[in-house]
């Protein structure tokens, strides 16, 4: 897990740390975690006005381009504690998101989510609903009339 954190964290200029405030509500802030290889923790400076308390936490890294594409993300679950004015994040589990692991990772991601969707429907006794593809295509064309030429096999 530490190797994955080292590999992927360096690809992002910043991350989002989420913990809980003193009332138990989620509280997030953008930060620049520093790897401490010896202790296998992430060190995070604590700015003013931050209301985090010790306990379970997570770190998210994600990115997209100007056109909301080239999506990449991953999450690390763990815990935080304050030590000498710095938050120590102790990782527990690396959770890959979209764009991690190349094409095989994408296939694994989509196959797993397709299975999860089937399970969701099965547990409720629902049949797999039909998607109104033609209607969706019309909206896509209306939103972007030039960049998206019609696709073959439309309307099934």
């Amino acid at each position, binding site marked *: 897990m530490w190797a994955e954190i080292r590999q992927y964290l360096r690809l992002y200029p910043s991350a*989002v740390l*989420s913990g*809980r*405030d003193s*009332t*138990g*509500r*989620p*509280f*997030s*802030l*953008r930060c620049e975690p520093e790897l401490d290889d010896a202790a296998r923790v992430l060190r995070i400076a604590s*700015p*003013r*006005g931050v209301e985090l308390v010790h*306990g*379970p*936490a*997570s770190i*998210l890294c*994600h*990115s*997209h*381009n*100007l*056109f*909301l*594409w080239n999506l990449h*993300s991953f*999450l690390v*679950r763990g815990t935080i504690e304050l030590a000498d004015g710095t938050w120590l994040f102790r990782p527990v589990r690396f959770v890959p*998101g979209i764009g991690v692991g190349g094409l095989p990772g994408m296939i694994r991601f*989509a196959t797993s*989510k*397709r299975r*999860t*969707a*089937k399970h*969701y*429907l099965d547990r*409720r006794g*629902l049949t*797999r*609903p*039909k*998607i*109104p*593809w033609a209607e*969706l*295509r019309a*909206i896509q064309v*209306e*939103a*972007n009339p030039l*960049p*998206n030429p019609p*696709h*073959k*096999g439309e309307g*099934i």
Partner: protein
Amino acid sequence: MLPAAAGTRYLEHVMAEVLARSVAISIPAEVEAVFQEFRTCEFTTLARDGTPITWPMLPFWRPETGQFMTTTSIGLPDKVFNIRRDPRVSLLFSDPTGSGLDNPPTVLVQGRAAAPDKVNTSIGAYEKEVKLVYRRQPSGAMWSSNPLLRWYFDWYFMRLEITITPTRILWWDRGDLSASPRVVEGADVG
């Protein structure tokens, strides 16, 4: 006369509407611009063991009610399961990429979410939002571009709606976290 449970639900609904409007009145224009223009936010729900779990989401601000609407696929239902168990959530607006805003504030919204168990595939109810997504993310049309991808990714278009009512909003001018945030509190914070 309404049954007691229905009456309670009605009162909760009215209270949520009143609170939403009071929050909507209080937020400044630069914060509302962030809600309108940011492409993503970092959306946090609480897992069963209490861990705050955060993933990027596409939020839709509805100024007429002072609430956010978003959706998730039934292939990614964990955040909805979390909300049904514990409605406390947060939305952090900290990545202005693509928004066109110059030095926007960083905004944290804490609130309560509702996620009914209804699978939506209809475009009609979300036409405005779907159009906005394809305008901002033109390559997203790829997932429905041929029969194979339509079969493989149909789960992505089976959506569960999430409505978030803010109870507290904090923002840091120009994203400067070294300064103390400004805060707007809702009526039922806590």
